[in-house]
């Protein structure tokens, strides 16, 4: 990917689940250009979908997909409730507990909660490209 090429795609979509396939297609298109494995792409799509589900069914949600040197970074927001941010930043899930945090820990390499310039909370997801 040339340095001068655009490295970020930003998408604002209705939060309704009917539009999730559009988001998956965008993620897939970017992932293919990074040689992200099929299963890794599926993991990233799952992570984004879970966050979209937390964003609720009304209003809009923004997704940005950024090409990194060794992977892909997605940001999803705004989060509907601060409790979700607290849950993501809280203690690790105990063994045998299925939380949003545990799901994200499993399917992406790292994640974090960030405050956007407009003060809204977004979740950052990083997925590395493994050696080919």
């Amino acid at each position, binding site marked *: 990917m040339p340095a001068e090429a655009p490295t970020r795609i930003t998408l604002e979509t209705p939060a309704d689940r009917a539009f999730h396939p559009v988001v998956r297609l965008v993620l*897939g298109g970017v*992932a293919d250009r990074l040689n992200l494995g099929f299963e890794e792409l599926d993991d990233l799509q799952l992570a984004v979908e879970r966050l979209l*589900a937390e964003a609720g069914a009304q209003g809009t949600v923004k997704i940005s997909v950024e090409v990194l040197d060794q992977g892909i970074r997605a940001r999803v927001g705004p989060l509907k409730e601060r409790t979700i941010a607290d849950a993501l930043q809280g203690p690790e899930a*105990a063994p045998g507990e*299925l939380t949003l945090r545990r*799901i994200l820990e499993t399917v992406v390499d790292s994640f974090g909660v960030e405050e956007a310039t407009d003060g809204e909370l977004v979740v950052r997801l990083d997925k590395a490209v493994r050696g080919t």
Partner: protein
Amino acid sequence: MGVSTSTGSAGTSTGDLEQVGAIGLIKAIDRFDLSRDVALTSYATPKHRRRDQAPLPRPRLHDPGTAVVAGALDPQRGAIERLTNKAGRSPTLSDVADELHTTPEHVLEALESDSASAPISLSPGTQRDGLDPLDTIGNEDHGFDLSEDRASLEPALNRLPRREREILRMRFEGGLTQSQIADQIGVSQMHVSRLIRKSLVRIRADLGQAQGQSRSRSA
């Protein structure tokens, strides 16, 4: 497995059909009454057909172009499995496209049409009749609690078929990849992917419904 093959439809792999068909056939044999003067084939075939037909995923196809894409899904599944076994890692969209002499966009569209179809549950019934294909794993049914709101999430999780819960445990507690789970339970990685996605959506929907009811009661 002639009956299963003859009832095949677009978007359903032969492996999926055979899996469901085999369960139906075993159930038919189990219930067959030898004292009746009826051939097993006469008895089993209608049941076998019903079992095949009821849970088949139906692609939501809206135009002939999409139908062509969905029709390409079976070779795509095969290509993914082949490439995974060959390279020892998950293939990229381009790998799959090269294998099938098509474009990554075409592969992506086919995957999307596939994700719109409902996966066949691995635990078709609620009875613990020993016919579940995952029973061969030999693991105990570990509890898997959701901690964010235990009171309302536990029922949602418990409403999942037992083996879907087991798959969630293998993925999110055991840390197994989809391919590893697929190997253990004898289905495709794509099927595992769809089951995980559908289970999580179902849990989330059940939770939303429970929270709505709770709000109604307190209002």
